[in-house]
C-alpha cells in the first residue's frame, strides 16, 4: 500500500481501479446527427467515466458550448445544415474556445478529410465505425494532453 499521508479518503479509489474515477470526470460533448452513433458513443464514454452531453447538429453544439465549454468535443463531419467543418470553424472563431480540443469523427475516413481536420485545428480524427476500446483510449489520450 502506498503511503497515503493521512489521505484515507483515497482508499476506496485505490481499490477500485486507482484514482481514474475522480480524475476523469471530464465533460465531453458528442455531436452527431445519427441517434444510434450518439447513443453508442455516450455509452462508451460514460462507461469510461466521463460526463457526456449530446447534440444532434452543429448549431445545437454551439449553443451548448456557449453555456459552458467542454473538455473535449467529438464532432461528426457530415451533418445536415451546419456541418462539422463549419461548426469547427465557428468554435475556433471564439477567443475563449480557441484551445478547446475538438476531435473529428466521421465515416468519411479519407486522407484529405484528415488533412483538412488538421488544418482547421482539430486535434484528432477518429474514423467511424470505431472500436469501443479505440474510442475510449484516444479520447483519453487527448484529455491527457498527449495529442
Amino acid at each position, binding site marked *: 500500500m502506498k503511503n497515503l499521508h493521512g489521505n484515507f479518503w483515497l482508499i476506496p479509489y485505490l481499490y477500485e481501479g486507482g484514482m481514474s474515477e475522480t480524475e476523469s470526470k471530464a465533460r465531453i460533448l458528442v455531436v452527431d446527427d445519427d441517434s444510434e452513433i450518439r447513443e453508442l458513443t455516450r455509452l462508451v464514454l460514460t462507461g469510461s467515466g466521463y460526463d457526456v452531453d449530446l447534440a444532434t447538429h452543429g448549431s445545437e453544439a454551439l449553443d451548448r458550448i456557449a453555456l459552458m465549454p467542454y473538455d473535449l468535443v467529438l464532432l461528426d463531419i457530415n451533418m445536415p445544415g451546419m456541418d462539422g467543418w463549419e461548426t469547427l470553424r465557428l468554435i475556433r472563431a471564439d477567443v475563449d474556445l480557441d484551445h478547446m480540443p475538438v476531435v473529428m469523427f466521421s465515416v468519411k475516413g479519407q*486522407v484529405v478529410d484528415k488533412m483538412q481536420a488538421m488544418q482547421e485545428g482539430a486535434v484528432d*480524427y477518429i474514423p467511424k465505425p470505431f472500436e469501443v476500446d479505440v474510442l475510449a483510449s484516444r479520447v483519453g489520450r487527448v484529455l491527457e494532453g498527449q495529442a
Partner: protein
Amino acid sequence: MKRPEDYRTGYLKMRSVLHDRATSLPAFPMVLDELRRMLDQRRFIGVLHFGIDGIEMVESLYGWQVLDQVLRRTAEVLRDQCASTLPEGSVLALDRVAGDEFLAFVPETFEQHEVDGGFLADLGDRILERLRSEVADSDFDDMAATLDFQRGYAVLSLSPYHRFERRVYTAVAESRSREQRVRERRERSNGEELRRIIDDSAVRMLFQPVVDLETEEIHGYEALARGPQDSMFEMPSTMFAWSGRVGVDAALDRLCREVALGEPAVASYDGKLFLNVLPESLDDPEWALDDGLISRNGIDRSRLVLEVSDRGTEDPARLVERMERLKELGFALALDDIGTGYAGLAAAEKVRPDYLKADASLVRGIESNAIKQEIFASLIQVAERLDAQVVAEGVESAAEADALRAMGAGLAQGYHFAGPGPMASFGGKKSRDH
C-alpha cells in the same frame, strides 16, 4: 423570430472572417471606425504596408503550418514596433483573415506634425529592418533566402467629396502597389541571377541516405541539388521556386539530372538512387534512349528511383500517364511530398508508385500528434494496398523515428540518421552511428 443563439452563430461567423486566428490581428474593415476617429482630430493618416516576399513559396515548400508561424512571428514583431517605433496611437491590421499583407495606420503626433511620404518611407524602412533581422534571419533563417519583407506606404486624408471607406481602400491599394513595384524589381534581378547559374552549370549535388528503420542500413541515396554557396539559390527549393517564375524549369531540372548522374561515386554505387524530377521532365525523350545520359554514365535504369512531387501539377491524369510510361522503361517511381497536398494519395492509387514519401511536415512531432499519426496510418494502409514502400522524410529525433517504426514505416531519411553530404563521405553501407 430570431433566437439569441442565432445571433451568437452570426457573431461567430462575422468574427471568423474579420479576426485572424494565427496573428490575432483584425482584418482592416474592423478598424475603420478607429481610423475615422483618428482622422477627426487630424488631417492625415499614414498607411504603411508590409508584404512578405516569397510567401507562396514558403507555403508550398514548407506547408501552411510554417507559413502560419511566419505570419504569427511577423505580427509579434509589428506589435513590438507599434509600442516602440511607431507613433503613439498607431493601429495594426491585416488586409484579410489568413492574408499575408500587414497594415499599420499611423497618426500625426505632437512631435510629428507631417505624416508625409519621406517620413513614412523612413519609418517603413526602420520596421523593415526589424522584420528582416527578427523574422527572416533568426527564427526562420533556414528559409531566409526565400523569405523577405517589403514595404509600401501612402497618405490617407479626408475629403468631403469622397466616402471615407473608399478613401481608405484607395490609400491601402496605393501603399500595396508601391510595395509591389519594389518586389517586381527584385524578381527581375533574381531571374537574371538564376539564368546565370544555369548557364555556368553552377549546381552541385549532395546525397542523403534513405535508411531502413529496422536495420538502420542504407537503402539508397536521394540526390539533392545545391546552388552556389551563400547565395539565395543555395537550397533547391528556392532555385526551383524561382525557375518556375522565370520559366527556366526544364533547363534547371536537366542540369541537376546531369550533375547527379555524372557524379563518379554514383556510377560505382550499386544501391538505389532517388532522383528528383519535375513532372514535365518525365516527357524528356532522354529517359528512353539507350545511349543517353543514363547509360553513358554506366547506370542501370532499375537502380534509379524517379521522385515526382504532386505539388503544382494541375492535371493528375497526365502525371499518371507519364509515370506509367517510365515504369515500363524499368525505372522505379516515388511520389514525393505526401501529406502536404490533397492530390498526393489520390494520384498514388492510380500511379502505383514503388515508394510513397511522407513530407517532413507530417513527420515533425508525430510522436505526440494524434492527427498526424492518423494521417500517417492511412498512408501506410495505402502503401500496403499498392505494395509500395513508405519513406518518412525529415526525421530529426529518436522519438520521431521510434514512433514511425512502431507504426510500420519501412524507410526514413533525415538529420537523425544523416544529413545531406558528398557521396564519398558516407563510405560503407552502414548508416552513421548516432
